[in-house]
């Protein structure tokens, strides 16, 4: 791997947000802090290109790739290729939607 490719991967990793899924909520972990979102408070989920927009009773949230899924000692990439394996980012959104009991809609704009 060339120097620029290594730098690209490092940049991607540094910018990736961490998500941790729990039974009744999920957490969005950024260097600036942790946001906890209950599945029950999500009212709609909409795809805008590669990002998912969550509307909640109070406010909203936009999440998109690249990302890490975190659980216990596991920190694994999602939405970007590493070691020849790619887990699509859509899988994360689909699972959150299922736990929230919602269908995902597409932004028509």
């Amino acid at each position, binding site marked *: 791997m060339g120097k620029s490719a290594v730098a690209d991967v490092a940049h991607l990793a540094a910018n990736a947000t961490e998500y941790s899924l729990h039974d009744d909520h999920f957490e969005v972990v950024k260097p600036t802090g942790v946001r906890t979102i209950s599945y029950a408070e999500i009212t709609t989920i909409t795809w805008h290109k590669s990002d998912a927009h969550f509307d909640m009773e109070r406010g909203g949230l936009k999440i998109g790739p690249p990302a890490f*899924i975190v*659980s*216990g*000692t*596991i920190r*694994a*990439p999602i939405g970007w290729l590493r*070691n020849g*394996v790619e887990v699509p980012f859509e899988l994360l959104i689909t699972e959150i939607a299922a*736990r929230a009991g919602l269908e995902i809609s597409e932004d028509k704009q």
Partner: protein
Amino acid sequence: MKSPLDGFEIKKFDELESTQQYCLDLIHRGEGESVGASLAAIQTNGQGRLGKTWYSEKGHSLTVSLIFWEYKNHPKPWLVGMGTALAVAGAVHCRISWPNDLQVGKKKVGGILTSLARTPDGDTVPVVGIGLNIGVENFPAELAERASNLESHQVHNAENLLELILAQIEALPEPNNWSDIKSIWAMFDETSGKKFTLATGEDAVGIGVGPEGELICAVEGETRSVLAAEALFG
């Protein structure tokens, strides 16, 4: 991941002692190379991990065993079982406690039993049993506190649920290494903080899942790791 029913048939029974034992016996006898699964409406002597029994009730449980002929002599057969656990979790949106207990909230709703069957030629074939409560109400008292059912969470019947699980299996990456399924596992993982009893009889608390799919746990303040192969196959 390859579906065990792609090119293989499913044997359905109204009643069977154990779907797992049925599949193991077929393979030991050198028979059943066209069989990819056995499904029973009720098991009279269902098996759980570590010799435990699995209680099921007619019409309220999915009890099926899958024969993964395509993964014959797989160098890491425990990953086939863990992959199947992921497929079930993806189908019903439950959580997985290492290596293969299925939970909704704090309640166990099912489990995965991974066995290795040896053919008369000496080949090993992973057989993965799935036991899932989809509405068991009359559990024996000793299980009532530990087990739950999926009825309040998701409503399914056994055969539709199996179709859903098979579709999830096909959507998974090939389970050659733990890193292939690690990201997906992390979405459903419920290992951290869970209490385990080790084969030594010691009580442990789960810290997480290690780089090869092993359990990382704490025993009286000391960190230990338990291989998935050791936990599943003894």
